[in-house]
């Protein structure tokens, strides 16, 4: 490691390792300091593009620090979100949550700056394992099960990615650099790498882990999780699969699928999870289009998305933290008790919906414009339809049902409901401010985008008119049809049905037919095997006792009897006789020796 390069992930890991030793009044400043130092490091690196942190490991040259415009913007937003997330969770005493969150951020930053698949894989897995602890930290039965599902799915994705880049290593004669793949004529390894990466981006049909896990994580854990996994995956897809046209179709399916499920959802954080699926669909579509504008749009939307989705998850977390509830059917009318949370959730909801002067407006429209410029009219119109659906789900339905409609809160829930502590409010205020700032001051975001040759102006009259019309009339449709989107005490079946039910079928198979077969084998062995063995053993025991031992014991008895007789004959106690026998015996031996 050169002196001018300190990997941002290293600061987070070091902070996480030292955290248990920092206690008392030093804990909160330390919690703020570590992500702040990481952010400063990221800013420093952004001013010094280049390749750093090259190590030789066995036959491989590992590169930990590729700093270019693409990694800069993602590194910047991840480090910024680490600060916001840590401030939001500052009240949490459980140090394991902070440690897991920081390792998770380190995994994301490590993957972003990685220049080869080996380093990428190392940090990729670090992300998966660390984030699992953010789910388990909630410490209830559902979270435990969801955490296992999450880690199993991600391990599967990791293995696919591993197989993909190992096959590529073999096929290309040792190339393990993490760069743009040849997507024009994809090989098997291209597909495998893309599938491994797109699992983390929650692209259907590999998406079900997201709403499942994010709704079961802790309030703070979900704030971290909503930012890092999917957007790091979007970064890796931009880096390696830009222009892979199958991603256009998958992205559009994803955007539509997510929004339909969000409308049906009763669980607030699951609803927001479905919203992530839908919004990441925009980014995946942009990666599939692959033009300079589309790639800029994917980066801008990932940047904006981390902030507004983080804000929405912070709002939902504040409600969960205060009331312990996250179902729409158990909440409602909360504006009287949580007005500050309402404001921030409204800002988040309007930002995701793409209201002018909000972050979503300046990022999402870039992708839609890229779709139209690539003459993909169907994709452009589908994305606009989804943006109407997004406004419906996150900008209208969610705040309406949480804060304004019928109060479904129990007396206890209503009593508990209150705006969150200062640190959570501060984190939401930072997120809310940035959502508006990005929408109002374009150079802040646009100057960070990777393709500098592209100029994009979102605030044209036509675009403003288009957006305002869509939003206004989406509002009208919601007003007229709102009775059809009322929450119900249901869950929505999804593709995780296959592995959840499949897992149970496997368990049933193990418990029933396989167990029966095993028992039958055991019984058969007991009847046939054991009795045969016992009979054989009894025979050999008898044989040993009577034949072997008989021979050995008989020989011994014979020797003893002969000895006794010889003693009686030869040792009668008369000295002359004994001397006679001895001398005779010695003479016989002497003669035998001389003659022979």
């Amino acid at each position, binding site marked *: 490691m050169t002196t001018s390069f300190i990997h941002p992930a290293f600061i987070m890991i070091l902070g996480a390792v030292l955290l248990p030793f920092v206690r008392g009044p030093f804990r909160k400043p330390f919690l703020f300091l570590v992500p702040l130092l990481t952010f400063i490091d990221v800013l420093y690196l952004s001013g010094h593009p280049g390749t750093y942190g090259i190590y030789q490991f066995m036959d491989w040259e590992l590169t930990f620090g590729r700093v270019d415009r693409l990694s800069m913007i993602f590194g910047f937003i991840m480090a910024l979100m680490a600060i916001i997330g840590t401030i939001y969770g500052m009240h949490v005493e459980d140090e394991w949550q902070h440690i897991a969150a920081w390792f998770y951020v380190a995994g994301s930053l490590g993957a972003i700056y990685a220049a080869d698949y080996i380093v990428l894989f190392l940090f990729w897995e670090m992300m998966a394992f660390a984030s699992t602890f953010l789910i388990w930290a909630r410490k209830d039965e559902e979270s435990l099960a969801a955490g296992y599902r999450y880690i199993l799915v991600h391990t599967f994705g990791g293995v696919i990615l591993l197989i993909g880049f190992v096959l590529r290593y073999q096929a290309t004669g040792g190339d393990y650099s993490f760069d743009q793949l040849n997507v024009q004529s994809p090989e098997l390894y291209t597909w495998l790498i893309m599938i491994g990466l797109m699992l983390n981006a929650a692209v259907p049909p590999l998406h079900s882990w997201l709403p499942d896990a994010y709704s079961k994580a802790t309030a703070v854990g979900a704030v971290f999780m909503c930012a890092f996994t999917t957007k790091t995956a979007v970064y890796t897809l931009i880096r390696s699969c830009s222009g892979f046209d199958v991603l256009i179709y998958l992205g559009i399916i994803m955007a539509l699928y997510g*929004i*339909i*499920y969000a*409308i*049906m959802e009763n669980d607030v954080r699951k609803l927001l999870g479905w919203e992530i699926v839908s919004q990441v669909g925009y980014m995946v579509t942009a990666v599939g289009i692959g033009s300079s504008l589309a790639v800029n749009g994917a980066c801008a939307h990932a940047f904006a998305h981390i902030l507004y989705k983080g804000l929405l998850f912070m709002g939902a977390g504040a409600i969960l933290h205060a009331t312990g509830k996250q179902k729409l059917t158990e909440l409602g009318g909360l*504006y*009287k008790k949580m*007005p*500050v949370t*309402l*404001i921030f959730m409204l800002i988040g909801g309007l930002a995701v919906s793409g209201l002018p002067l909000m972050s979503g407006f300046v990022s999402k429209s870039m992708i839609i414009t890229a779709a*139209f410029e690539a003459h993909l*009219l169907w994709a*452009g*119109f589908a994305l*606009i*339809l989804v943006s*109407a*659906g997004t*406004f*419906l789900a996150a900008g209208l339905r969610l705040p309406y049902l949480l804060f*304004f409609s019928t109060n479904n809160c129990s007396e206890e829930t209503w009593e508990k409901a209150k705006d969150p502590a200062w640190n959570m409010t501060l984190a939401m205020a930072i997120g809310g401010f940035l959502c508006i700032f990005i929408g109002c001051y374009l150079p802040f975001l646009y100057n960070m985008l990777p393709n500098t040759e592209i100029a994009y102006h979102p605030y*044209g*009259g*036509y*675009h*403003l*008119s*288009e957006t*305002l*019309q*869509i*939003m*206004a*009339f*989406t*509002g*009208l*449709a*919601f*007003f007229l*049809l709102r009775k*059809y*989107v009322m929450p*119900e*005490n*249901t*869950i*929505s*079946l*999804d593709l995780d049905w296959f592995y*959840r039910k499949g897992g149970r079928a496997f368990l049933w198979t193990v418990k029933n037919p396989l167990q029966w077969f095993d028992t039958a084998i055991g019984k058969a062995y007991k009847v046939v095997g054991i009795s045969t063995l016992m009979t054989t053993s009894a025979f050999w025991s008898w044989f040993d006792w009577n034949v072997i031992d008989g021979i050995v014991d008989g020989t011994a008895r014979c020797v003893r009897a002969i000895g006794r007789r010889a003693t009686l004959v030869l040792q009668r106690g008369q000295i002359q006789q004994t001397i006679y026998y001895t001398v005779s015996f010695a003479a016989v031996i002497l003669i035998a020796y001389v003659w022979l």
Partner: protein
Amino acid sequence: MIVNFIDYLRDRLQTVIYCCYGVMTFIVIWSMSVDTSHAHTWAEKMIPGFWSLFGLCSCAIVIMVARWFGRSGIMTREDYYDN
């Protein structure tokens, strides 16, 4: 302050609704005067208030598809996965 303001608006809900209708009307009328040279298709140029119609239909489609899809067996009891 925020609560008082919301209560104030809720007390005058009908007026708020009329104001929203007014804003919608204004947006549609304004959209007709906007330069459509940046339109993506001929339909946007030919149909006045195209995006209003698109927004209204999109929202209705999303609601109805979600409802149909949910009612087709996708929305199920909460303890479905419980033992």
